[in-house]
């Protein structure tokens, strides 16, 4: 019998995994390099527009260029973070906490979705609080922006033409709660408990809906780093509401 001993088998398996891992590391590094090349070109050209090197712009054009430049900067940052986490010993993703105006950030994030919502004919409605000045939260602006982007993107993705998406915020004792409610297809109860797991994605009959599944997992990590909570309430065929909480700035200091 040519039965290899278990240790030998493990060694072979381990080598295989190491090779696979190193292949993936290289692939990410090559792709990131390519991404950076395109992102650099966009960055420089947008900057030329903003600096009026290519002629005068009207106010609207200027504001769109600035927004696009900012989006491009965020992509560059993501690529940088991806490369960092691709290293043998990944650097901890750094958090840059500040006293953040969440109303302002939601407004700003929604701006990026105007086009998509319009195209799909979905009304995205931000129900602003009555308070003139809403309390600041203790948060990392860019991390919370990506949580909002993820949740709004999902809401739009799983909504149909004519549906509405509602964003609300409310202050409670010590924290702020943000909710994103859609009237879309909803999530089956059995899926809900794993929804925030790594690589989890609800299988739908709707085949056009793709995604890595990393979105909600990343959101959960981010919110937990903020000492907040994230959860969902959903009914199949009626819609889903995602909630997350952030501590008030005054609680932290």
């Amino acid at each position, binding site marked *: 019998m040519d039965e290899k001993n278990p240790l030998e088998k493990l060694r072979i398996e381990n080598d295989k995994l190491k090779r696979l891992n190193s292949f993936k590391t290289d692939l990410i590094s090559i792709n990131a*390099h390519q991404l950076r090349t395109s992102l650099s070109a966009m960055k*420089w050209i947008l*900057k030329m527009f903003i600096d009026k090197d290519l002629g005068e712009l009207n106010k609207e054009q200027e504001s769109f260029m600035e927004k696009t430049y900012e989006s491009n900067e965020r992509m560059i940052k993501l690529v*940088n973070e991806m490369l960092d986490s691709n290293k043998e010993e990944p650097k901890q993703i750094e958090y840059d906490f500040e006293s953040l105006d969440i109303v302002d950030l939601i407004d700003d994030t929604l701006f990026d979705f105007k086009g998509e919502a319009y195209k799909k004919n979905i009304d995205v409605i931000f129900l602003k609080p009555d308070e003139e000045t809403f309390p600041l939260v203790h948060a990392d602006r860019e991390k919370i922006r990506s949580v909002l982007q993820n949740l709004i993107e999902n809401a739009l993705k799983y909504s149909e033409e004519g549906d509405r998406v509602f964003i609300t915020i409310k202050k409670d004792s010590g924290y702020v709660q943000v909710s994103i409610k859609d009237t879309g297809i909803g999530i089956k109860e059995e899926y809900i408990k794993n929804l925030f797991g790594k690589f989890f994605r609800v299988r739908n009959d709707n085949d056009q809906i793709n995604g890595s599944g990393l979105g909600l997992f990343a959101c959960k990590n981010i919110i937990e780093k903020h000492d907040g909570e994230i959860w969902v309430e959903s009914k199949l065929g009626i819609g889903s509401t995602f909630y997350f909480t952030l501590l008030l700035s005054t609680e932290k200091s």
Partner: protein
Amino acid sequence: MKKVLIIEDDTFLQGLVSRKLKSESYDVMIASDSDDAFAVLEKGIPDMILLDLLLPKIDGFEILTKIRQDPKFKAIPVIVFSNLSEDTDIKRAQDLGINAFMIKSNFTLDELSERIKGLLG
């Protein structure tokens, strides 16, 4: 007029960098690979070289090695302008002798131009 040699194989990026430097009154020379680069260098010594690392056939590290070994060229300041950013790449370029390592996507062309100006004194 200060002369800058851009060694970059992506013609689109090449054009953008060249446009910027020309607007800042530099005399710009362009090379897309190692052969081009040395042909240009033989014709006249630039005041500064902007070097990409990922190039066809002979990469930027090898070009840098040859430049630093040649008595005619070894004093020319070199800025590596690349999208590679692994620690090993940066260290390798630094060991060969560079004046700056800049990651393209992390800088605007104004910042690049500022750096060139700073290094040229």
